[in-house]
């Protein structure tokens, strides 16, 4: 399992090994086509122009290449503004989740305090209970808190998810006791211990939370739609959705372009952080 290519492999050609590799890559490519196909097709559509956008059978590659749809979308909508809004919401959402899961996860894993098990049970039990109707009550709460039409109102109910608390709790559980004891000997208090000793050790788990939340916050749709009033505060997801079911206009090339624009940042983030992401999960789920 996971054996690095041996030095001999580099020197000597092994036909059997080569065949296995070929098969392996073939399989990977097939899966990749299924996974990425729809996105590639969207990308291709966004780069087509005129009749090619909807022609059937569809042309696989845009020819001629046209950036018309992107230009249109960028001109018609205040895209930089929406991108900025989404970025801000995502930034605060990720930060809140990191802070809350790191504190709550730590206490639930390593501090014995009265009520701890009840807290953990309550948090985890919300995973299975229905929440489709929550938005109505939550909106009323936001009204009472005077947070309607603010990013704080968008982020607050999404500031923490069960999975993240659980993930960090598991990550903190795996830290050897000796490290903690050593720090205590040096006279570190609880906060210093948490900040200086423990947090650096769960970095991979924190990165995992970062990616999960980045995706979740970036794609947030229903809640910002309910909370925000000013078009100037809309995130990309809401702004784009107005293009897709138009009573008065539908431009499929533009829809494709806008959707691609909204997806690229998330894909890039995953590409860059994916190694740590998996590491983080590996450190935390172990039962």
């Amino acid at each position, binding site marked *: 399992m996971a054996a690095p290519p041996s030095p001999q492999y580099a020197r000597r050609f092994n036909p059997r090994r080569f065949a296995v590799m070929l098969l392996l890559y073939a399989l990977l490519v097939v899966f990749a086509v299924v996974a990425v196909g729809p996105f590639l097709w969207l990308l291709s559509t966004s780069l087509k122009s005129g009749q090619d956008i*909807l022609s059937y059978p569809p042309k696989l590659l845009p020819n001629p290449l046209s950036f018309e749809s992107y230009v249109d979308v960028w001109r018609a909508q205040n895209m930089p503004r929406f991108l900025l809004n989404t970025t801000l919401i995502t930034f605060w959402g990720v930060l809140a989740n990191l802070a809350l899961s790191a504190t709550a996860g730590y206490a639930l894993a390593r501090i014995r305090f009265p009520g701890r098990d009840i807290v953990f049970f309550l948090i985890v039990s919300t995973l299975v209970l229905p929440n489709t109707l929550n938005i*109505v009550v939550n909106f009323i709460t936001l009204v009472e808190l005077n947070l309607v039409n603010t990013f704080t109102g968008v982020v607050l109910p999404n500031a923490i998810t069960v999975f993240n608390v659980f993930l960090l709790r598991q990550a903190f559980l795996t830290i050897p006791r000796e490290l903690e004891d050593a720090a205590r000997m040096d006279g570190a208090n609880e906060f210093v211990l948490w900040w200086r000793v423990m947090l650096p050790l769960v970095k991979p788990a924190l990165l995992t939370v970062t990616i999960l939340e980045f995706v979740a916050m970036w794609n947030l749709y229903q809640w910002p739609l309910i909370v925000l009033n000013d078009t100037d505060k809309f995130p990309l997801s809401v702004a784009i959705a*107005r293009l897709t079911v138009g009573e008065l206009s539908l431009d499929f090339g533009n829809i494709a372009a806008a959707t691609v624009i909204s997806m690229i940042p998330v894909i890039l983030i995953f590409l860059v952080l994916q190694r740590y992401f998996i590491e983080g999960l590996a450190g935390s789920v172990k039962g």
Partner: protein
Amino acid sequence: MKRTLLALVALSAPLALAQELEMWTLALSPTFDDYINGLVAEFEETHSGVTVNWVDLPDGGFPDRFFASIAAGQAPDVVNLNTSRMLQAQAEGALVNLSEQATEEQLSIYFENLLESSSVGGDVYAFPWYQAPTVLMYNKALFEQAGLDPETPAETYEAALEMAGTIREATLLEGIAPLPFPEDWLVQNGVSVLDEEGTEAAFNTPEAVAALQVYVDAVENRAVSREAANFDYEKAIRDFAGGQSAMLVTGPQFIRTVESDGPEVYANLGIAPYPQTETGIIPNAIQNMVVPAASDNIDLAIELANFMTNDANQLAFAKLVPIFPSTKEAAQDPYFCSDQESLEGQARCIQANSVGRGFDNQVRQDVKDEIRKAFAEAMLGQKGAEQALADAETTVNQILSR
């Protein structure tokens, strides 16, 4: 709802600013930003001390937001709703009765048949805004390919379905899409969906069965695909603009979609009046402006709703996009038949000539769902037409008796 929830949340109540109006529209931004912002500015200018907050929302999530806002005591003051959502909201008592609260003068500017579409039990609950009486768009190239004369499109729906069958056979493409919505189709064939008080189903009649049977036969004879039972207008537009369908039956505002996404189809585009049924009724999607009963400034809200939909403002809107005004004076404007050259111009004139025959035959959302389900059941062969309608009648009566 509102009070209980507020009591349960039990925190301080926010202060509402009396002279602030919130207006929601459906998917008009960014295309019509200048137009709407212009109207808002004008209204604010003539009503000193009033601020209008315009919120433009996408369709997905609109119902959630509407419900949550009213439940939280943050009702918008003017809302743009399509007719079935408007009727559903009315059934919940959420809308201001305009027959009582609006002035004669305010109501007098609209076409009577359109006010009828937004009435329940004789009372008006919405100002009709823009309407889109349906026209027939067709692809002349595909007509030729199927051996049909591209200059004589179908005049009756019967003929249209027959042509659709010919086209499908010859080209293996779609003939006509979308079929008129079931609730529309019933009315076009002389069937009322509900009784006059709106308290009981009235669509289980031999005429209704015959109307449904036309659809069932169309599927069976391959005049339309089985997908037709989905009544998906968006997909129909895509197919048509992509050259995959020969006839498109929608409002002419989508000519622009064809122009931008299907220029080759656009080059062969023909425009004709809606293929008639015996009643002569033309399906007509209307967007309405309503005032929620929970608005804290009902009179001013009515004024704004009326202003948004008045003659001058609708005429200006109709010049921006091929829609048709719901007000009598604006509809008289020579503008609508002034241009016989462009396709949009032709469509406008066709609409002008169909004034008075276009009805939005929508029913409230839950009733609509049941009727569409019955149609799909019959069209896909799960039930006979008679059985499907009888079952739907039972369910609809249950819904209405709640």
